[in-house]
């Protein structure tokens, strides 16, 4: 067969395969256009999860008759005014979205340019364009996509359930909404009630800062838990500025789904973020738990290449190490500064668990509200017969309650310390708290003396592929600080000469391979540090006060004071909280006083 140029319609369908892979991708492209057009209000309507109709209307700049006609042509865009791909300030730039969508659906666009007298309409059906005709619209642009993928039945078959497609579309809108709190977003599905309704907010004179607004918007999307338990971040390094919010370690998830990175307002999925977040949280969270973070990175356009992925889901940094360092540093600082702050989620859960009780004559507790609690009642031991589990100590000195964690009042079940603070009470898990203190002390000790290294009698040669070996060898200095001395050994191997004495007799080959994988994946050597910390963690666990140990008041107060002075003391090594704080207001709520 002879080589020939493909017709435009086929080219557009091929492009559509990359850019528009599912309704959510079309929604994303259209909403991005609306944002680039300076809209303040964006409304999205989805029918059947977007498969039969996607309607995006905005109040942005709009287009005149000529522009409307051009908009659906390939490689036509208003977004590269000086043809400079190195300084992209808009979300879009490829001029591909509309023609791609038009190639696989029935697309119609109605738009009225700001200040113009008339609106115009153009329609594209399976790639063939109609003439521009006058239409009616008050302002902005209204894009209607009907029967997406009707022209590519194969793709149609790959669509998931209506619900799954709808959720993906909502997710795409929410992602963009996180970055643009000053734009109002509405998403309406098949139901009457809108799926998403977010009002616009601007910094105002009433003292609402940009931070508060962002926090409110993130709260609306990720839940109030996040808004209440996130630490604001603001760090600058060499032209890059990182803002956003880092969730407290106790607010953790089983997957890394709730980690968002926006680069110059563009939502991206980046391995760099995953690695940096893991690095920053590594000693406050168990390895299989993931924190929630939302980070906005703004930097010089010239140092960020956004033109690497058709759907623009990935970016490339000219200096990835710098960005990684910035993220890790900023997150660590924020976490360290948060010190021993306990999550309010925990307190709320505790409140929910507490239930009013009435006492019957036999001394057995009965729940006031019947239901599941009633069934549980017979199994509850009659408290009157058991010795009092709490040991009260004398009333605390008033001065002591001024400390953040207050003055110890009692020890419950020889496991929990109850302390009175200036405003409320604190319950401390003595083992978790002390474990963290011992662990932090060991870490400080290692930092002060350096990691002791056992020199190997028989150096271990680890064969890797040449790229991995080179990457590991390049990080030899960093690894040596952690106690692992290695050097390149021919093109496809490294030779390990010294290992951290703390690890004892260890699987050197396995360690080196894990490290090589991590350096390639995440850009950092985490597992060595993690292994050292695991050993420290085990030692800390054995060396700390256990549950069941009776503490006197002086001991309890000493523990509280140490917790206040130790960084990260709000959670144990596995991300569980070490204490719960209940404010007076919350206690009053329990008793119906509020």
């Amino acid at each position, binding site marked *: 067969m002879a080589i020939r140029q493909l017709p435009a319609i086929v080219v557009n369908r091929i492009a559509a395969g990359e850019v528009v892979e599912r309704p959510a991708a079309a929604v994303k492209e259209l909403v991005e256009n609306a944002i680039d057009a300076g809209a303040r209000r964006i409304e999205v309507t989805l029918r059947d999860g977007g498969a039969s109709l996607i309607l995006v209307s905005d109040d942005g700049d709009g287009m005149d008759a000529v522009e409307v006609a051009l908009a659906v042509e390939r490689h036509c865009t208003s977004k590269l005014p000086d043809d400079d791909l190195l300084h992209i300030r808009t979300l879009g730039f490829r001029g591909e979205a509309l023609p791609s969508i038009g190639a696989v659906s029935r697309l119609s666009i109605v738009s009225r340019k700001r200040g113009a007298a008339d609106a115009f309409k153009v329609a594209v059906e399976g790639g063939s364009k109609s003439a521009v005709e006058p239409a009616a619209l008050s302002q902005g642009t209204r894009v209607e996509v009907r029967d997406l993928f009707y022209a590519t039945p194969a793709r149609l078959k790959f669509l998931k359930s209506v619900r799954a497609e709808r959720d993906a579309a909502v997710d795409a809108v929410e992602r963009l909404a996180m970055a643009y709190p000053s734009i109002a977003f509405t998403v309406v599905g098949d139901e009457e009630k809108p799926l998403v309704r977010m009002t616009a907010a601007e910094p105002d004179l009433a003292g609402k800062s940009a931070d508060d607004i962002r926090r409110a918007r993130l709260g609306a999307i990720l839940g109030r838990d996040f808004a209440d338990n996130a630490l604001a971040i603001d760090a600058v390094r060499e032209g890059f500025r990182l803002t956003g919010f880092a969730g407290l370690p106790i607010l953790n998830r089983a997957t890394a789904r709730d980690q968002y990175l926006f680069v110059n307002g563009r939502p991206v999925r980046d391995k760099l973020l995953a690695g940096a977040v893991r690095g920053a949280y590594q000693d406050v969270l168990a390895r299989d738990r993931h924190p929630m973070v939302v980070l906005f990175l703004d930097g010089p356009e010239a140092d960020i290449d956004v033109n690497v992925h058709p759907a623009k889901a990935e970016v490339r940094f000219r200096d990835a190490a710098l960005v990684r360092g910035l993220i890790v540093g900023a997150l660590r600082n924020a976490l360290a500064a948060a010190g021993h702050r306990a999550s309010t989620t925990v307190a709320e859960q505790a409140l929910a668990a507490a239930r009013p009780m009435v006492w019957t004559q036999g001394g057995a507790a009965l729940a006031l509200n019947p239901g599941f609690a009633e069934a549980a009642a017979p199994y509850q031991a009659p408290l009157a017969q058991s010795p009092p589990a709490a040991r009260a100590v004398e009333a605390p000195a008033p001065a002591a309650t001024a400390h953040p964690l207050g003055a110890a009042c009692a020890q419950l079940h020889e496991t929990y310390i109850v302390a009175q603070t200036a405003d409320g009470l604190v319950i401390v898990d003595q083992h978790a708290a002390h474990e963290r203190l011992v662990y932090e*002390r060991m870490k*400080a*000790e290692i930092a*002060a*003396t350096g990691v*002791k*290294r*056992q*020199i*190997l*009698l*028989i150096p*271990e040669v680890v064969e890797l592929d040449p790229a991995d070996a080179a990457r590991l060898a390049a990080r030899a200095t960093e690894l040596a600080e952690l106690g692992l001395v290695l050097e390149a050994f021919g093109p496809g191997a490294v030779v390990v000469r*010294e290992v951290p*004495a*703390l690890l*004892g*007799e*260890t*699987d*050197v*080959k*396995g360690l080196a391979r894990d490290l090589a994988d991590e350096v390639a994946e995440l850009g950092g050597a985490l597992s060595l540090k993690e292994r050292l910390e695991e*050993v420290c963690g085990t*030692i800390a666990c054995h060396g700390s006060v256990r549950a069941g140990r009776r503490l006197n008041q002086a001991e309890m107060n000493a523990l509280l004071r140490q917790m206040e002075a130790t960084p990260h003391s709000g959670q144990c090594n596995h991300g569980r909280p070490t204490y719960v704080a209940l404010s007076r207001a919350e206690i009053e709520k329990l008793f119906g006083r509020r």
Partner: protein
Amino acid sequence: MKLTIERAALLKALGHVQSVVERRNTIPILSNVLLRGADGKLALSATDMDIEMISAVPAQGAKTGGTTVPAHTLYDITRKLPEGAQVLLELGSDKGQMTLRSGRSTFTLACLPAEDYPVMSGSDLAHNFTISAADLKRLIDRTRFAISTEETRYYLNGIYLHAAKSNDVNMLRAVATDGHRLARMELPLPDGAAGMPGVIVPRKAVGELRKLLDEFDQDVAVSLSDTKIRFAFGDSTVLTSKLIDGTFPDYDRVIPTGNDKVLEVECKSFAAAVDRVSTISSEKSRAVKLAIERNSLTLSATSPENGTASEEIEVRYSASPIEIGFNSRYLLDITEQIEGEGAKFVMADAASPTLVRDATDGSALYVLMPMRV
């Protein structure tokens, strides 16, 4: 099969074989011990597919035959029988059960057929020699502590036994290392061992062998091929083990020859001092530092949490001063092996292997890698 055995003899034989049997098995018959009666003897054997232990005891019986019964149960029953008792073992007619009678006690044990019991073939063991129990004991004791426990380097999980030339004398050498330290013990090569292949005897077999050596002090007949090794004690007890299929590293290269700084210490007091000083180290690694000057050694340890410790002891040393750090546990492991009064440390610098020897006995040699402290 119908046999009568002295309880004491049965207990001793079972004691030998039952320790080979793992407590938990995925193959049921491996929990059992194989019993075979013939010619006025009862042969007991047990295996975990890597090691096979056979022990024979005299028995009076008419019919020959064999079966397998749960090893730990049989051992426990025998252990609890009164001293001096006679034990009657009788296999039922359907071979599914074995009855054990002693005095007024009767036990019925479930059996599995003897034909299904895995047996190690030992016909191809080409190299044979005899070694005294005392010599074998020394080969094991001096090197055993340095066997690696790290499973990924499986070829270090045992003692490397091989023939070598030392100053033109043929020697039988045992070597073990875990990558941090190395122990080497040698003895004049027994007759018949010349030409034997170098073999790695796995840790479990070393342990079982060492237990047997505590009870026997006659000569041990050793036969081996490049896949198996067999130790026979008289004609009653035989231990056969598979060997580790791997290449032991070329250890000669890590034994330093150019070291020139010779430190002589009184072994017992040195070990005691190391033990005392290391108390202060909080870490698992327990590093101690040796600062050596002319005829004086200062041991020290620091821990930011606990404080510091130091102790000075008198030594013989005339080379230039040196500071060197070691894992105290490794130092103690080695000094424990030295029977003579004095130990000799031969060093080069703080980052090179150090050679340790008994000042009077040259048969054992230890190499220890320093720690960076």
